């Protein structure tokens, strides 16, 4: 900076001047409104006169007398003012008392009025409440009645439903029974048919094992035999007995032997076999 100042003082001077100018404008620009008030203070001008001493004293005396007078007057005024004040205070107090009394009466009245109003209100309230209660009771009663009715209805409905269910059950049971009977019947028929079929097959097998004796009129002979079987169709040894003879002992014997030979007989397995345990066969030779 110093070297600068030495080398080109003009430039430094210009720069400083520029900044001072800016600062000046900033300060006075910002505080423009504030300055006039500060720059023109009210100057009080003192006015002087040359005066005579005597005259001055006279003037002083007069001044004093005037001052005294003024003071007296002031005292008087003050007294009067005090009196006035006192009177005013009295008056005020009286007024205030009257006001208070009036207010008290008004208050009493207001209270009485309020009480009366409150009473009326209370009565009205009580009446309203009673009315409301009555209404509410009526409503409740109605509701209870309705409820009772609804319950009865529900009970009735439940009963009906129960009856209907019972009836349906019974009906279903009966139908099942019928069905079962029918089934049984059908089964029995089926069994019978099945048994007949087996019996026919058994007869055929016996027939195949039977040797003709060559006796005349042999084909007209018939005999009834009882055969005892075990499951699987095996003929129990000694289980063949003649129930009704054909009248020809040789024929009967031959049939007996044929049955033993034919063992095992074709029998059904399972429950159907039961009817084959003691099988009665009418034997008649086939051609």
């Amino acid at each position, binding site marked *: *900076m110093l070297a600068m100042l030495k*080398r*080109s003082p*003009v*430039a430094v001077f210009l*720069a400083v001047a520029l900044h001072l100018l800016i600062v000046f404008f900033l*300060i006075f620009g910002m505080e423009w409104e*504030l300055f006039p008030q500060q720059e023109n203070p009210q100057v009080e001008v003192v006015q002087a006169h040359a005066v005579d001493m005597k005259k001055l004293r006279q003037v002083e005396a007069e001044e004093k007398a005037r001052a005294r007078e003024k003071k007296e007057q002031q005292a008087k005024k003050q007294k009067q003012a005090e009196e006035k004040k006192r009177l005013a205070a009295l008056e005020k107090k009286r007024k205030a008392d009257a006001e208070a009394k009036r207010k008290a009466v008004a208050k009493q009245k207001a209270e009485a009025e309020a009480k009366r109003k409150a009473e009326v209100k209370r009565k009205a309230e009580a009446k309203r409440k009673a009315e409301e209660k009555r209404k509410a009771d009526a409503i409740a009663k109605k509701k209870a009645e309705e409820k009772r009715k609804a319950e009865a209805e529900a009970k009735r409905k439940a009963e009906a439903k129960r009856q209907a269910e019972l009836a349906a059950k019974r009906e279903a049971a009966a139908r099942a029974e019928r069905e079962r009977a029918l089934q049984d019947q059908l089964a029995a028929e089926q069994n019978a048919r099945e048994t007949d079929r087996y019996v026919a097959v058994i007869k055929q097998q016996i027939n195949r094992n039977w040797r003709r004796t060559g006796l005349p009129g042999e084909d007209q002979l018939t005999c009834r035999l009882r055969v005892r079987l075990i499951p699987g169709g095996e003929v129990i040894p000694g289980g063949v007995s003649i129930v009704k003879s054909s009248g020809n002992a040789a024929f009967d014997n031959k049939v007996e032997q044929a049955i033993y030979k034919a063992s095992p007989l074709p029998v059904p397995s399972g429950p159907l076999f039961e009817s084959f345990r003691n099988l009665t066969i009418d034997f008649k030779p086939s051609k």
Partner: protein
Amino acid sequence: MSTDLSITHLILNASIVVQLVIGLLVFASVMSWSMIFDRRRVLRQAGRAADDFENRFWSGGDLAELYRQLERDGDDESGMAAIFRAGFREFARLRTKGHNDPMALVQGAQRSMRVSLNREVDRLENHLSTLATVGSTSPYVGLFGTVWGIMNSFTALGNVKQATLGLVAPGIAEALIATAIGLFAAIPAVVAYNRYSNKVERLNNRYDDFVEEFATILQRQAGN
């Protein structure tokens, strides 16, 4: 309250750090403006001198005559004239010493002119870096003052229960003055730096061209 918020009041009531920052920035601003005025004068002079010299140089007169004239004028010559003198002096000296190789003569003169050119450009660029520094750093310095002031303001705010605008505003206003002054110092500096560095660049180019042209002329003379 309005009197309390005027700039003078704010600066006078600011904390010592902020005041220091403001002082520093004002100093930087004064310095940068001084340099601006100085560079303005120097560069204008240099431009004018270059114009004058080119006129004289290309007017067709004898170069030796021109040299003698310049010598007579005194030795505070600068710019193109200084380059010309350096080149011509070297050329004449080499010639009187008996060097007859035109290439060596011209090269010697050119070297001497380069040195002179560098010196001239250096003289023109003087202080420009300071301008750049002021332009780039003073906003940060101002910002530092502002941050400091606001920090103080908030510290004061932390001590009271009820924060009011009246409590914060003066502190922040006073702090912001630092940034304002920083920007005030920086903006002209940056503008001037760009402008003057461009001007120096152009003068440099002119000098360069002159060196080349003069070297060509010298080569022609050396060949004769």
